[in-house]
């Protein structure tokens, strides 16, 4: 019996388990998926919780519901991967052998990396919305908040879903307008980047949107610490921004098991060939999603597109052929802009987000790099697609490789 082992039963691992079980013969291949947690979170939904648009029950389901029959699901912490000997060692010392390994252990927030972030104001006046606990605590805080300085800060890059912080401040603008408190809430977006977004044309469009919504942007701010006593954040070059409510995107790192396994960089992201999606250290280890150090967004859409490439290349490797699929870094993100509207961006390693229509050139129904109602409905619809189509590894009507049709260059 040959063995395929998948580490992590989040978006990527679950998609791979479904795809591979459908393809590989059950009499020849044993498939095992390992995760330390029972609950699957629909992470894009965390953004909606502070504003009372979603509740906890809208974003959680048991992981086991999405693991197909014929796949072993082990609930355990993983100690490390021994790539030389093709073994995974679990926390309690149990050893699991593999012929091929898929690492999809994701990324986590590490507020402890920033001095004072997890101080006495944590989840009282300092919140994250990248965990269920953080987004719920923030929702409770907003219920009775009378206004003041609302500061959103990105501690460092890379982060999951790089548009979420922008969506957050635009949602906050709409939320406080609807509550009649907007004149009492000053919203500031503080980022280590030199603008609202990393890609020039999108940065310009999104930057203008923030300006229209009266949201201040402080660029080039690289956070050193949270001063709990003075209620301010301080940068390494000693700039200060005072807050009454700080919504922070903490430093992100990969799973510590990557470091213990000697597979990653200094932030525990797995060293990955950005085209083949194989570990640069071992050809029989594939890396899917946020866990990889590839230069693309850490987002569900990327995982979905990358899963096609991992699937094809894993099958090549299993059948002893050279890998044929090449990942282009394709990313596709709906951006909520508040008041029932949204924008959409579609890009890859080489092409920045451009205006146009998607997925059908000239028709849409979605508009690229502009605010429309339809884009907002696309985002809401996506939650259903996520649970019912995407996780199950079913075909979606969008090819994994980005295409230029429908995009305007000028």
């Amino acid at each position, binding site marked *: 019996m040959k063995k395929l082992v998948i580490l992590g039963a989040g978006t990527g691992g679950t998609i791979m388990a479904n795809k591979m079980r459908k393809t590989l013969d059950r009499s020849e291949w044993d498939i095992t998926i390992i995760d330390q947690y029972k609950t699957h979170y629909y992470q894009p939904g965390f953004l909606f919780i502070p504003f009372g648009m979603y509740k906890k029950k809208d974003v959680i389901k048991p992981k086991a519901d999405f693991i197909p029959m014929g796949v072993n699901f082990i609930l355990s912490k993983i100690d490390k991967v021994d790539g030389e000997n093709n073994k995974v060692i679990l926390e309690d010392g149990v050893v699991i052998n593999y012929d091929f390994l898929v690492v999809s252990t994701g990324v986590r927030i590490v507020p402890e990396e920033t001095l004072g972030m997890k101080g006495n104001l944590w989840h009282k006046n300092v919140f994250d919305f990248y965990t269920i606990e953080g987004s719920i605590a923030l929702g409770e805080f907003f219920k009775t908040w009378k206004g003041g300085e609302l500061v959103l800060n990105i501690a460092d890059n890379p*982060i999951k879903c790089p548009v979420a912080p922008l969506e957050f401040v635009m949602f906050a603008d709409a939320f406080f307008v609807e509550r009649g408190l907007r004149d009492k809430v000053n919203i500031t977006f503080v980022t280590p980047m030199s603008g609202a977004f990393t890609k020039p044309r999108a940065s310009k469009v999104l930057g203008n949107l923030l300006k229209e919504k009266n949201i201040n942007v402080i660029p080039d701010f690289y956070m050193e610490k949270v001063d709990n006593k003075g209620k301010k954040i301080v940068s390494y070059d000693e700039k200060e921004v005072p807050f009454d409510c700080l919504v922070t995107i903490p430093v992100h790192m990969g799973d510590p098991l990557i470091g213990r396994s000697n597979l990653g960089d200094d932030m525990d992201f797995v060293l990955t060939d950005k085209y083949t999606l194989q570990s*640069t250290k071992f050809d029989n280890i594939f890396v899917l999603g946020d866990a990889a*150090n590839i230069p693309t967004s850490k987002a569900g859409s990327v995982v979905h597109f990358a899963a096609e490439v991992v699937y094809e290349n894993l099958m090549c490797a299993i059948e002893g052929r050279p890998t044929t699929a090449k990942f282009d870094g394709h990313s596709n993100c709906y951006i909520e802009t508040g008041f029932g509207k949204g924008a959409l961006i579609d890009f890859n390693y080489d092409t920045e987000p451009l205006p146009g229509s998607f997925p059908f050139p000239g028709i849409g129904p979605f508009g690229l790099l502009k605010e429309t109602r339809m884009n907002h409905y696309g985002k809401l619809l996506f939650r259903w697609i996520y649970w019912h189509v995407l996780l199950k590894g079913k075909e979606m009507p969008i090819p994994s490789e980005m295409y230029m049709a429908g995009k305007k260059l000028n």
Partner: protein
Amino acid sequence: MATKEYAGKTVNVSEDGYFTDASQWSREVAADMAKEVNLELTETHYKVLEFIRDKYNTGGSLTIRSIGKSGIASIKEFYKLFPGAPLKKATLLAGIPKPASCI
């Protein structure tokens, strides 16, 4: 593609001034480039630049935090070495192509 002249050598640069061929770099070239941003390079500057080049050559990701973890300079010291926008200045002076920014 544009070219620029540093320390008597012609180098190929992109429109925002980054090298397109990292092998055209040398310590002398960097010293000459540094004058444009009013910096005088010390041995610590060079160590940081070489760390960045090494990261580039081995395909590792480059962030301010990774420089802080390098053991050469703390993040605070890094800011003092390359005031203003340290990562941008340092990657320019290290003569590597523009790093793929984290998106």
